[in-house]
Every structure is written in structure tokens, then in C-alpha cells.
């Protein structure tokens, strides 16, 4: 059994165990947390045993599933998948540790159910990054929606039903269209090789030699699924709803990791399988990407709700990632691949910190807060670090990724790179403005000050009195510390991450560059 399989199976078993223990809140919480920590520790041997200069896919294991269609349950990772698996293993324990600060469960729900579903989600997400069989990838891509659907619909905010169904239907439709493309690729391989297969490497070999017109159809099917997942404008409308209604911890995983399946799909499936079509249609994708950067930034600036704010910030960032991928240069794609990691860290932390803010103040409206830094200086510092990373300040992890994307894109697509640079400026504006509105100035806002007492309630506290809001406790600081360390550490020393992805990136884009 490979380390990779252990990483997939452990949270699955954990989810079952926690589901059985859900009557006992304390035991369920401890078990779930312990499982997530072991999972994180297991990343170490996986990372160490990964040889960046070695085979394209490592930690390979395979089992026959449906022989009639040449379907296998096969897993394996490249450097890009390794990064994504590592980041979800890191985020889950952080989310668990902060759950009490960020989320209040609906009354009749027990926490064990939530934790169990998150562990299940973790297992499926790791599996989807590790799948090397296209059929298996599709199956996991769709199955993955079910725990997320119950996480949003069962534990979310007031409009959770709407958000859950919208999320599910968007992704499900995208997945079905992808299925059509996957079947198309399969029958192409069946004609070509005389025997159908869903093996990723074989399919990529066959399909990449297909005529352009065929490739375009197959590309479009995969593209739609990934563009909805990522999400690219104009397929993004489900994200603000889902991100604002899901519990904070779940939003972290949704925006931080799950959505990366989309950009990961571009790298793993779109580019190697349909290189001609990718090259042919790149301008259209780039337009969507750049529109996403500008549109996401402008809407983020205009949001009055913190959760929706983060969703639009992410849409802008996904635009950057897509720009890098479809620029087809080594630097740009490497930038995008590391951005997938860095965005998870930066946005994950931003969502968590804003979640703590909203948890303390009991309000997600931005204008309900003001001058909070005076009351909670440590929380303010955390928000600043997360924010600076999200706006890609030099010295934080995101800077090097965004810089590489723009640099690489400028070589081949200068116009798009220039427009996207405007996005960087806008990012500075909306992040700093958010920080300013919440943290600086005099203490003000509904969440910070008691409301004016109504007539006849003489005993109520004086209007304008400060509510007591605690600063971060030791446990919360400890939970956020790993993120802070990584954000600053990778900002100054990104080499390990770049070294891990570079060979995989090179293999990914050789096919396209040859065209």
C-alpha cells in the first residue's frame, strides 16, 4: 500500500468512526481532530518520497474495476497534485481547531455529523487529485458534490437550501458535459487502439493526436466542467451564494481546495489531452480569465458582506490562475501551479480570520464593524497578514506566484498581462479598504457597540457602550500560526515548492508548446 492510498483511506475511515460517535460531541471532535493531525503527519513521508526529477506519476497503484470498459481504480500524483493534497491536509486540522470560533451550528444539528462529512470530503478531494483514470476522476468529481451539498444545505446560513441546490446543479451539469467528452475520448481510443481504455496517460496519447475539430469538442466538454468548478466568469454565480451560506470552515475547503479541481483539471486534462484545441481556443479562455480578474476585483470592492467579498476576491484570483495556465510558458504555468497552493493559504486564512471576526461580532456585514484593532489587536494583525498575502505583497507567498504569472504571460500575451496587472492594483485597494473599514478609526458599528435602548428599558446598557469582544485566544493563535509561518516563509523562500512543481509543469506544457 502506498502512502497515497493511506492518505485517501484514513479520512474515509475517520469519517465512518466519527459518524458512529456523533452522539458524543466531545469524543467525536477529538477523534476527528486526531485523524486530521495524523493525516497531516502522513504528508511528510509522501512529500519526502516524491522525487521531482523522477517519473511523471509517482506513488502509483492500480486495481481493475470494470473490465468491460477498461476502467481501473488507479491513483498517482505529480508535483501539482502533491501540493494540493498537502494543502488540504493542512487546512482540515486548522479548520477543525477554529470551528468553535467561526461557526455556530443550527440548533438541532450535532457537530459529529459536520466533522464526519468534512473528513469524507477530504478523502474524496484527495482522491480526485490523485485519480489517474478519467472514468474514476469523473466518478469522484460528481461524488464529491454530495458531502458538500449536505455540508452547505445542512449546516449553512439562512439561505442554505438555495445555495446548496444551486451549487449542486451547476457542478452536476458541468460534470455531465464532461462525461460526454470523456466518453468521446474513450470511443476515440477504442477506434484507435482496438480496445477502449480510460487510463489517463493512454488517453492523453491518443486524443492529443486527434484532428483539431475533434479535439475542440472534447476540450469544450472538459472546459465547461472545470470553468464552472474553478469558477471562471461567467460560470461563477454559484460561488458567492455557496461561499456566503456555507459554514466558515466549509467555505475554506470549498474555495481553498475544492475549486482548485477546476484549475487542476486544466493542467491535468485540458492541456495534455487536447493541446491543439487548447492552443486554438486559448485567446477565448484568456479573455474570460482577464475579465474575471477585473470583474472579480471590482465586485469585491463593492461588497457589503464579508463572505461575498471573499468569494469575489477568489474569482479574481482564479482569473489570474487561468491566465497563467493558458499563457503556455514555463514561468506562467509554474506561477499558476504555485498560486493554487498560495491562494489556498492566503484565502483560507482570510476566510478564517473574517469568520472569527463575524463570529465575535455576530454579523457578517462589513459596515457593522469599525475600529476593531483597538479592541482586538492580535486579530487585526492576523487580518492584515492574510490580506497582504491576498493582495500579493512582496515578502508574502502569493507575490512570487503572481509575479511569475504576469512575467510568463507577458512573453506571449502582453496585452492580457498588462490588463491583469490592473487587477493587482485593484487588489491592493479592496483589501486595504476592507481592513480600514473593519479595523481602523474610532470604534463604531452595530457589532461593536450596543444598540440604543428602546423606551422603557432603563436597565439596558448605555447607548454606544462597547460590547465586550475578546481578542484571539492561545488556541486560535496556535491554529493560525502554521498558516502565518507558511505565508511568510514561502514568501522569502519559495524554492521547495517551485522545485516540486517545475518538472511536472514542464511535462504538462511540452505538448502544447510543440504545436
Amino acid at each position, binding site marked *: 500500500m502506498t502512502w497515497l492510498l493511506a492518505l485517501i483511506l484514513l479520512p474515509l475511515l475517520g469519517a465512518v468512526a466519527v459518524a458512529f460517535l456523533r452522539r458524543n460531541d466531545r469524543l467525536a471532535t477529538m477523534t476527528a481532530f486526531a485523524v486530521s493531525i495524523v493525516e497531516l503527519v502522513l504528508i511528510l513521508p509522501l512529500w519526502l518520497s516524491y522525487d521531482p526529477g523522477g517519473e511523471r506519476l509517482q506513488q502509483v497503484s492500480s486495481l481493475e*474495476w*470494470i*473490465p*468491460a*470498459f477498461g476502467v481501473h481504480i488507479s491513483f498517482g500524483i505529480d508535483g501539482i497534485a502533491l501540493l494540493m493534497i498537502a494543502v488540504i491536509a493542512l487546512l482540515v486540522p486548522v479548520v477543525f481547531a477554529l470551528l468553535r470560533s467561526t461557526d455556530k451550528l443550527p440548533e*438541532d444539528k450535532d457537530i459529529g455529523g459536520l466533522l464526519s462529512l468534512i473528513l469524507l470530503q477530504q478523502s474524496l478531494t484527495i482522491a480526485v487529485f490523485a485519480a489517474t483514470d478519467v472514468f474514476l476522476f*469523473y*466518478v*469522484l468529481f*460528481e*461524488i464529491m458534490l*454530495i458531502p458538500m451539498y*449536505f455540508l452547505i*444545505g*445542512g449546516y449553512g446560513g439562512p439561505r*442554505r*437550501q438555495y445555495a*446548496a*441546490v444551486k451549487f*449542486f*446543479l451547476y457542478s*452536476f*451539469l458541468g460534470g*455531465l*458535459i464532461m*462525461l*460526454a467528452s470523456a*466518453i*468521446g475520448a*474513450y*470511443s476515440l481510443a*477504442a477506434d484507435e487502439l482496438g480496445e477502449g481504455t480510460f487510463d489517463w496517460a493512454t488517453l492523453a496519447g491518443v486524443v492529443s493526436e486527434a484532428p483539431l475539430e475533434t479535439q475542440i*469538442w472534447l476540450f469544450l466538454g472538459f472546459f465547461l466542467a472545470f470553468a464552472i468548478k474553478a469558477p471562471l466568469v461567467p460560470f461563477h454565480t454559484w460561488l458567492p451564494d455557496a461561499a456566503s451560506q456555507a459554514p466558515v470552515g466549509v467555505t475554506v475547503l470549498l474555495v481553498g481546495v475544492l475549486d482548485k479541481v477546476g484549475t487542476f483539471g486544466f493542467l491535468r486534462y485540458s492541456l495534455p489531452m487536447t493541446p491543439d484545441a487548447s492552443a486554438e481556443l486559448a485567446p477565448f479562455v484568456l479573455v474570460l480569465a482577464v475579465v474575471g480578474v477585473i470583474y472579480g476585483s471590482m465586485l469585491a470592492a463593492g461588497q457589503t458582506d464579508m463572505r461575498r467579498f471573499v468569494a469575489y476576491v477568489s474569482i479574481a484570483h482564479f482569473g489570474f490562475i487561468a491566465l497563467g495556465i493558458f499563457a503556455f510558458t514555463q514561468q506562467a504555468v509554474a506561477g499558476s501551479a504555485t498560486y493554487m497552493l498560495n491562494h489556498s493559504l492566503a484565502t483560507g486564512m482570510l476566510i478564517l480570520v473574517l469568520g472569527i471576526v463575524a463570529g465575535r461580532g455576530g454579523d457578517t456585514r462589513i459596515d457593522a464593524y469599525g475600529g476593531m484593532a483597538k479592541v482586538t489587536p492580535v486579530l487585526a494583525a492576523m487580518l492584515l497578514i492574510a490580506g497582504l498575502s491576498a493582495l500579493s505583497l512582496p515578502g508574502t507567498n502569493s507575490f512570487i506566484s503572481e509575479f511569475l504569472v504576469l512575467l510568463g504571460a507577458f512573453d506571449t500575451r502582453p496585452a492580457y498581462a498588462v490588463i491583469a496587472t490592473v487587477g493587482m492594483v485593484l487588489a491592493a485597494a479592496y483589501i486595504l479598504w476592507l481592513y480600514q473599514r473593519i479595523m481602523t478609526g474610532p470604534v463604531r458599528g452595530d457589532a461593536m457597540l450596543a444598540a440604543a435602548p428602546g423606551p422603557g428599558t432603563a436597565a439596558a446598557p448605555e447607548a454606544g457602550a462597547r460590547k465586550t469582544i475578546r481578542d484571539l485566544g492561545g488556541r486560535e493563535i496556535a491554529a493560525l500560526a502554521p498558516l502565518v509561518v507558511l505565508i511568510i516563509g514561502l514568501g522569502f523562500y519559495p524554492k521547495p515548492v517551485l522545485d516540486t512543481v517545475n518538472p511536472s509543469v514542464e511535462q504538462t506544457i511540452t505538448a502544447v508548446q510543440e504545436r
Partner: protein
Amino acid sequence: MNPFLAQQLQPVDAPGIDWGAILPMVIVFGAACVGVLVEAFVPKHQRWSGQVVLTLGSIAAAGIALGAYVSGRPSHGVLTMAGTLSIDTPALFLWGTLLALSVAAVLMIADRSVEPGGSFVAQAGIAPGTVQDRAQVQSTGMQTEVFPLALFALGGMMAFTAANDLLTMFIALEVLSLPLYLMCGLARRRRLLSQEAAVKYFLLGAFASAFFLYGLAMLYGYAGSVRLADIATASAGTDRSDTLLFAGFGLLMVGLLFKGSVGPFHTWTPDVYQGAPTPVTAFMAACTKVAAFGGILRVLTVAFEATSWEWRGVMWAVAIISMAIGAVLGLTQTDLKRMIAYSSIAHAGFLLIGTMALTDEGLSGTLFYLLAYGFTTLATFGVISLVRDSSGEATHLSAWAGLAKRSPLLAGVFTFLLLALAGIPLTSGFIGKFVVFSAALSDGMAPLVVIALVFSAVAAFFYLRVVVLMYFSEPAPDGPTVSVPGAFTTASIALGVIVTLLLGILPAFALDWAGAGGFALGG
């Protein structure tokens, strides 16, 4: 002696009968006849147990006979009864499917604990609302004729899927339909609705049969024979009237598509599914669908393969209409049984896509889909029959709100079945869609497949609506209770759920069976 009789004096060669091949069907028909005798001669209090043992025993015996025959069967099938029946691999697969599904359906029919005395009225002849009718509401008797009726219907379905000429097919169609018309009107609760369903089904079914017969006559006029293979041979020649051929084909298909509840010939489906006793609905939804599509597959493949370019466009339109009606009207339904009825219309559209492919993959894909869909829909109706209030089954959607809080197990099972109907991976519904769509895609029907995928997503919305309702809504204050199912219904639901899961995770063996061979084209 008159000349007609004189002719009969010539020695007549009795047609050869391959008893081993048709034994399963003979057992079912024989048991049905014995069942009628049981009704006549066995004392009333012993009838129910006698009928249950007889029915389940005969189905099991037929299954064993089938299993024994399959292992040693000739690989290209046999034609028997003077070429009127073709016992080939698809027919055997469909027989197995029908027998397995009818076990689950009969278990539901036999259940007497969910509804005291069973879902069936003691005396269907009493008019609703009369004094006698009010008196019989109190009784717990049950019209046990339903068992032989089910066996006759089952036998008719088996004959239908094996029929090698149109006349045999027509007779089998009537044999399977007439008992179903009767069974629809036997509901213990909501008698008027049930009788309305029966009359509606009968009248529309009679029309459909008439269409079928008219088409048969035209095809006989065209080919000079009712044999499917002869029609294929005749259509290869060019000197005959194409008008006759395609008019006959069209009328024939109307009759068949009606039975498969394919839109736009579906109008009976919602009313009948809603009005019939739920076990009968389950039986119809699963077994009739299997039989009808088995028949369509055979007719299209054996008789009309050569002319497929002429009729394929029309069938495309029918499939699209069926999926559109099922998916879109399903969204507006507020009654669960009606909703599943519309879902079955959408599924009929998907099935038709596989049927049209006329390739080996299309054949095996459609057969697999039928097996998978049959078990899922059976278990779905089984679960629906468990949620009840004082007036019987609570099938209105609002009654299902917040059900997950009160009965998490039932809600979980139902969610799984709905996901299977929606075609989510790791359920049989997904593998079924996958095999059918991949067959259609490799046969050059890519646009149709994309349309079908879009309608799958639309249909997923109304399945999700029920899931949302069960899990995320507040329960109604005077909501229905969930009956503790008796052993029979439990077994039936469990069977459906296990098969749905098994075919979703390990479909290889069933795909191998379904793909073991094609129709016997000869004769």
C-alpha cells in the same frame, strides 16, 4: 364431408417445441392457472398463504429452470413453437430480469402489515361510497386474485420479449395488459382514484392495442408475413410500397411506445401510477418497462435495422420529447407518485436512445439499464408505500418535509434511490446512463447524447428537491408517520437497494451477461 374438414384429414406435422427453452414461461403460466383454481377451491382463510407460496415458488422454479437452461444454451438462440418464439440471449436476460423484479414486486403485493390487510380491496366489485363499501373498509380481507393476475401478466411479459412474430407479440401484449388493467383498480384506499386509473389505462391501452394491430395488418400487407425476419427481408427489396412499410412501422411503434410510457404517448402514466395500488405501480413501472423495451429492441433490431436511416430522425424527436416532458413536467409535480411517473417518462427517453443505437453496445447497454432502473424504481415505490397518514399513503410532497429528523434510515435509503434515479456515480443509475450514452455516442448520436445529459441535469433538480425537503425543511406538525415495514416490504426494498448499489460499484458481471449475445436473426 365438407372440403374444409377434408383438408384437415391430411397429416399435420405438430411444430417442434423445445420444452427446455420455454420451461420458465410454461411454469409461470401453469402456476397462474393453478392460482385461479386455488381461488375457486381453497377456503378463504388459507388463500393468501397458499397464493403467496404458489406465486413465489413458481417464480423461483422458473428462475431455476432458466438458470439450468442458460448454462447449456445454444449460443445463437433457438427458434421454437414453429418459429414464433425466439429464445436467444437477450430474451433470456430479459426473462431473468423480469423474474427477479417480479420477486420483489410480489413481495410488496403480499405485504399485509404496512396497510392492515394489504393494499388490495376485499371485493373490487362493490361501488365506492355505498353501504357495502363502508362495511368492507373495516374488513381486513384481501382480493387474492391479484396473485394469479400478476403471474399472468408476468407470463405475458416473458412471451412478449421472446415473440418472434408480430401476431405472437400482439397476443402476448394483451395477455400482459389485461391483468394489469384489473390490478390497477384494486386499491383499498382512494377507490375512486384507483378505478379511474383502471378505466383510463384500459381505454387508452385498448387504443394503443388497436394501433398496434393496424400497424401489424399494414406490415402483413407489405411483407406478406408477420415474421419479424420476413419483414426485414422484404424491406431489403425495393419493389414494394414504402408507404405501407412506414405507416405500418409508425402505428406499430405507437402501440409499443405507449406500453413503455415514452412521451408523447405517456398521458396515461401519471394518472395510472398515482391511482393504482403502490405495489402494482411498482410492478408496472419496473416489469412493464422491461417488457416494452425488450419488445421495441427486438422489433427495431430484427425487423427494421435495414431501414434505420429512414426512421431514426423520428425516433430522435420522440426521445427528445419524452426526455423534455419527463424532466420539465416532473419539476412541477407536487405528488410523489406522479413525480416518479414523470421521471419514468424521462428514463424512457434515455432508454430509447440506447434502443436506437442498434449496435451490440446499444443492446447490452439498454438491457443493463432496464435491469438497473427496474430495481431502483421498485425500491422507490416500496419506500413511498411506507410513509402514511390516517387516510393512507401520504404522497403529497409537503408531507415529506423534515422526514430525515424522524426517520433517518428511511430518508437515507430514499435519498440513495433518488440519487440513483438522477444518475450519480456509484449507483446503478450512473452505470446505466454511461453504457447507454457511450453506445449512442460511438454510433454517431453525439448531439442527442448532449441533449440527454442536459435533461439529466434538469431532472436531477426535482430529485434534489425531495432531498432538500427531507433533510433541510422543518417537519410539518401533523405530518405522516413512517410505518414499520413488515418482512415482505423490507425484503423487497432491501433487494432493490442492494442491487442498485451492487450494480453501481461492481457492474462487471451484469454487463457481461447483458453483452453475452445478440438476437437470433434467423427463421
